[in-house]
């Protein structure tokens, strides 16, 4: 397959982001000894920092960025709304609330948390779809986001309420709820992997019919597709991806907005081209945002969710302020 040059640039950006993430921050070794280890010097301290602190963090960032970027692109095509982002529409918040409840009730295993998180995301998706069916909301991209913001606010307040009830749960929840890829174990990562692969398979099967849905429901049916089944499959994939990402890194807003927005800027509106570009761009955004979060206020760290919001909010304003919100 012949890929346009911006694909090369996107993958190059990702490679640089990964390297930076291994070289800087999180752990008391400098870039020189980190680089030394990568070159083959066996320094036990450097080995510990890289293998136990930075590498898991990098991989969590890769998975989270991939999941959120792809989920955003899918949700935007499905609702034909460029502002439809899991974090803004309450999908992530649904997932976060479900996890908060689960922690309060004593759920500890990573696979259980992941499943609960995905069920919460599924409920969030169902609410989004219900909202798009409401008179006036579905047709107006900005109103859908307002509805989502209301839902997000409500769910996050409820999560805070839960934290007031139980001090032990609160400590566990607090850092997670602002979004972070730090301190995740390989177990937590492995727990999300099966569902991420399942989501990937669903996407491969559904991407062509989904693209035709962008031409309208009747056109899709005329081409032999089943719009109801396509929607169901896409919602399931989004729930698996967002739920998995949220279980890992907490509710991260704006990633699913920024990544597809940039991808569409290069590749055009076709969902297949957008998805191909989201593959490197999503992880590149999260991994570099995470590296920045370690360096800005070193030796402490900024929550990753704050960095993504700082990047994402202006993009949201650019899209809304553009004279006409492009239809998808």
């Amino acid at each position, binding site marked *: 397959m012949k890929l346009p040059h911006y694909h090369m640039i996107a993958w190059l950006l990702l490679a640089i982001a990964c390297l930076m993430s291994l070289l800087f921050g999180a752990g008391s070794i400098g870039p020189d000894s980190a680089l030394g280890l990568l070159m083959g010097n066996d320094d036990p301290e450097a080995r510990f920092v890289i293998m136990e602190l930075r590498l898991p963090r990098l991989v969590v960032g890769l998975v989270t960025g991939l999941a959120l970027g792809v989920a955003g692109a899918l949700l935007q095509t499905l609702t034909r709304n460029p502002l439809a982002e899991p974090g803004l529409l309450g999908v992530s918040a649904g997932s976060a609330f479900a996890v908060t409840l689960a922690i309060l009730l004593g759920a500890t295993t990573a696979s259980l948390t992941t499943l609960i998180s995905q069920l919460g995301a599924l409920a969030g998706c169902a609410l989004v779809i219900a909202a798009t069916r409401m008179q006036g909301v579905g047709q107006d991209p900005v109103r859908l986001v307002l509805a989502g913001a209301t839902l997000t606010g409500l769910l996050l307040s409820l999560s805070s309420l839960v934290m007031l009830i139980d001090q032990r749960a609160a400590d566990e929840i607090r850092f997670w709820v602002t979004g972070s890829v730090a301190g995740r174990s390989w177990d937590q990562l492995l727990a999300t992997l099966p569902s991420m692969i399942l989501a990937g398979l669903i996407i*491969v*099967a559904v*991407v*062509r*019919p989904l*693209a*035709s849905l*962008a*031409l*309208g429901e*009747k*056109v899709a*049916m*005329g*081409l*032999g*597709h*089943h719009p109801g089944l396509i929607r169901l499959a896409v919602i399931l994939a989004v729930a698996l991806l967002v739920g998995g990402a949220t279980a890992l890194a907490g509710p991260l807003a704006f990633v699913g907005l920024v990544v597809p927005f940039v991808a569409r800027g290069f590749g*055009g*509106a*076709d969902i297949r081209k957008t998805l191909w570009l989201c593959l490197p761009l999503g992880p590149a955004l999260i991994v570099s945002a995470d590296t920045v979060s370690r360096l800005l206020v070193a030796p402490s760290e900024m929550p990753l969710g704050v960095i993504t919001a700082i990047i994402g909010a202006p993009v949201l304003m650019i899209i809304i302020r553009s004279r006409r919100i*492009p*239809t*998808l």
Partner: protein
Amino acid sequence: MTQLPPFVSSGQSPLAARKLAMAHGSYQVIPDLDLELPAGKVTAIVGPNGCGKSTLLNGLARIHKPRHGSVILSGKDIHRLPARDVAQKLALLPQENSAPEGLTVSDLVRFGRHPHQSWLSQWSGEDQRALDNALTAADVLDLADRPLDTLSGGQRQRAWIAMSVAQQTPLLLLDEPTSALDLGHQIEVFELIRTLSREGKTIAMVVHDIVGACRYADHIVAMNNGRIIGEGIPQHIITPELIRDLYGVYCDVIPDPGSGNPVLVNFRQNPTG
């Protein structure tokens, strides 16, 4: 009311409706309708707003399920056939289409190959030939790389028709293909439809423009209140009485000096004047 001949099945029609009843919720739009599209001809379905002509087209295209009766696609009940099989025999162009911003003509026409592909099979040589043929047939080859939103209304409609042509179906159904187009673009689209029919396609189109229907259709189906009140070749069925029954207006019908097709003139609200 024009007297209908008793319904006789010739068994030759590629697409037919049998005792078809269609409804929107509890509101019955079409109570009981029989129709056979003549093979290889252009059929125009005409009638006033809300007469059920678009509902009929959606029923024929398998978009909506009938309340009763059936739609027969080459001898088989269309609702018992897989969607993909239907899409290989019948292409539909709905009214008011929209495409994602920046989608090019050739991107759009490629979608027409979906019924012939599966997620395992990639773009084949046959797909490429069908794409080239469709672009040529609809005369949009020069526009292939242009985004749809930069085209004129007529060009855009020809691109959508090219997508249906790429589907390589013997049947083509169009819902108001010329509404929202100015006269020049209407003629452009009508001429394309006629050319496609000469090449062997069976075409049915819902049209508002009765004048265009008289000129470009081989067969006219006139509907009012969900029933067919007149059906046949334009010269036979287009009469001042039919126009009055359809639209509640009076007019005179004269033959076109060139083709002999009926031409409607002197529209008025009252019988005299």
